[in-house]
């Protein structure tokens, strides 16, 4: 990657994308999301509309049918989706999971899959890393892919918290191809595969949905002698851990942008309600006990936004951005949680009523302090990798 100057354009910030995204989102109002939440149903129509409009293909290079935009543009799209009260969680991975194929896949894999992902003909929005016994200590994962004499691989093991697997055609899978005992470092011997789910399900792969606090379409995967072709290996065997790490910063920045969008939604709702709602003959927002927490949430959101912009600017300049991407995710997730709590408190009892959408967004916002990386792991990264303090793991 070439070293370029990284800069934040405070005047532009992809404004040309924001109005069209919010215009599309306006067709999916609170009632739409309440119904999906009630039914625990996938927001298929919304995802299709975003796909048809090309927003989920923003980061795919033009030669493969995308728009070839940077992470800053992707962040603007996802921020607007969340600021409009919609939820990108159902499909944001379609935007960035392909990055591993783009950076490390063969020409043939890129020619085959990227145009399909760009058009939405096939969805690649499931990412199989986490396992029941290995959370963030990824190198300990137990799912194995054993190379057969014919060059294919046999996969055995289990994955958990794999979002959108039932609504994805392709799965990016991390599995151990060389036993840890036979490698020099724990990070070696892991490989990445692109699994075609339509062929795998029922032939050694079972997907079981997990009901959760929010409507997030997450699942467990069970691999039982699933045979996948040798051609599904991405890059070199044994180097998968590196490949996966490469994609993490993009994910952190994009999800941080969603948190900024959520914060905007909560703050807008809270300040409107505080201005409107009359108790004791005046608006409740005239009371500093109500007004100040909203103002504070706003300040925290704006501060977090700057870190998201910094991380995105570094990323788009091809510069290292691990600390910034992690801090963006941490600060934005904390800011949206603060905004969510303040919004609920401002609404009092009405905040608990489904028709106000606050309780649903409140539940949804909570996720991002846990996933896709928990707050503690970000702090451990900063403490140990940035500040050089002793390692906890």
């Amino acid at each position, binding site marked *: 990657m070439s070293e370029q100057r990284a800069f934040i354009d405070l005047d532009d910030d992809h*404004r*040309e*994308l924001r*109005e*069209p995204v*919010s*215009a*599309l989102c*306006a067709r999916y*109002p609170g009632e739409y999301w309440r119904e999906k939440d009630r039914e625990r149903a996938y927001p298929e129509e919304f995802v299709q*509309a975003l796909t*048809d*409009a*090309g*927003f989920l*293909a*923003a980061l795919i290079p033009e030669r493969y049918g995308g*728009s070839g*935009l940077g992470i800053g543009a992707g962040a603007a799209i996802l921020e607007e989706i969340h600021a409009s009260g919609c939820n990108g969680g159902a499909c944001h991975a379609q935007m960035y999971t392909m990055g591993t194929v783009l950076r490390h896949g063969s020409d043939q894999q890129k020619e085959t899959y990227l145009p399909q992902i760009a058009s939405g003909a096939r969805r690649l929005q499931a990412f199989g890393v986490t396992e029941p016994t290995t959370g963030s200590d990824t190198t300990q994962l137990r799912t194995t892919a054993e190379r057969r004499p014919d060059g294919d691989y046999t996969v055995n093991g289990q994955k958990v918290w794999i979002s959108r697997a039932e609504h994805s055609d392709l799965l990016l899978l991390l599995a151990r191809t060389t036993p840890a005992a036979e490698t020099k470092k724990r990070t070696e011997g892991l490989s990445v595969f692109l699994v075609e789910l339509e062929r795998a399900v029922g032939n050694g792969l079972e997907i079981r949905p997990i009901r959760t606090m929010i409507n997030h379409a997450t699942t467990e995967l069970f691999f039982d002698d699933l045979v996948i072709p040798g051609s599904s290996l991405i890059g070199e065997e044994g180097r998968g851990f590196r490949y996966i790490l490469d994609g993490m910063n993009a994910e952190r920045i994009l999800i941080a942008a969603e948190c900024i969008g959520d914060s905007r939604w909560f703050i807008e709702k809270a300040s*409107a309600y505080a*201005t409107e709602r009359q108790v004791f003959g005046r608006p409740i927002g005239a009371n500093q006990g109500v007004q100040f927490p909203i103002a504070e949430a706003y300040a925290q959101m704006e501060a977090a936004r700057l870190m998201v912009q910094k991380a995105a600017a570094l990323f788009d300049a091809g510069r290292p951005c691990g600390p910034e991407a992690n801090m963006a995710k941490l600060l934005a997730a904390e800011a949206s949680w603060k905004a969510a709590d303040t919004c609920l408190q401002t609404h009092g009892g009405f905040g608990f009523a489904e028709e106000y959408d606050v309780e649903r967004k409140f539940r949804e916002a909570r996720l991002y302090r846990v996933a896709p990386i928990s707050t503690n792991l970000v702090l451990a990264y900063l403490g140990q990798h940035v500040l050089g303090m002793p390692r906890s793991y």
Partner: protein
Amino acid sequence: MKVLVAVKRTIDPNVKVRVKSDQTGVETANVKMAMNPFCEIAVEEAVRMKEAGSANEVVAVSAGADKAQETLRTALAMGADRAVHIVTEAELQPLAVARLLKVIADEEQPGLVIMGKQAIDDDSNQTGQMLAALLGWPQATFASEIEFKDGTADVTREIDGGLETLNVNLPAVVTTDLRLNEPRYASLPNIMKAKKKPIDRREADALGVDISPRLAIHKVEEPPKREAGIKVADVAELVAKLRDDAKVIG
């Protein structure tokens, strides 16, 4: 045929409008703005005319401050070929807009001017009619269907009691009603293409027309709060209340 489509930047229809504390208007600072929904319908119709082959060029025009450019970009992303931005910070009333549009129509010589029947901010519903008068062209307002034949247009209008179809000679001014079409989303590839389409900036002051306001707004207020109703026991009581209390029947 060239189609000129006029668009206006208004408060986003999904935003709850708040009256300014000094009652001079509604709050627009830090409020989300968007293309007026009736204008979106006009752009959509113009783009469909181009796709159907009845138009060969769609030119979008808007008058207003710098930000109007964003609304023009949306029109370009929906499929307009180029845009004209009449730049002014002045408050624009319908007659002023009609005069500015006339200058552009005289220059562009379109076969059709299409625009929203009204803007959702001031609900004037005047600009299209005034423009037709200034140009001396036929007008067909509240269009719910437009069909071209032999240099004329059949325009179906929604009127009280049903539909009316007018046949107008071209060039003409048509204003759009809600049911004419469902506007498309601007897709990402088209948004990117729109960035490269030209927007011609014209200073309103240099167009040689009087755009000074003719109307003065004295006061803007929130609509009165809806009061709780009452239940009546029977028709006789209802009639009595309507006659004696509400005084709406004699």
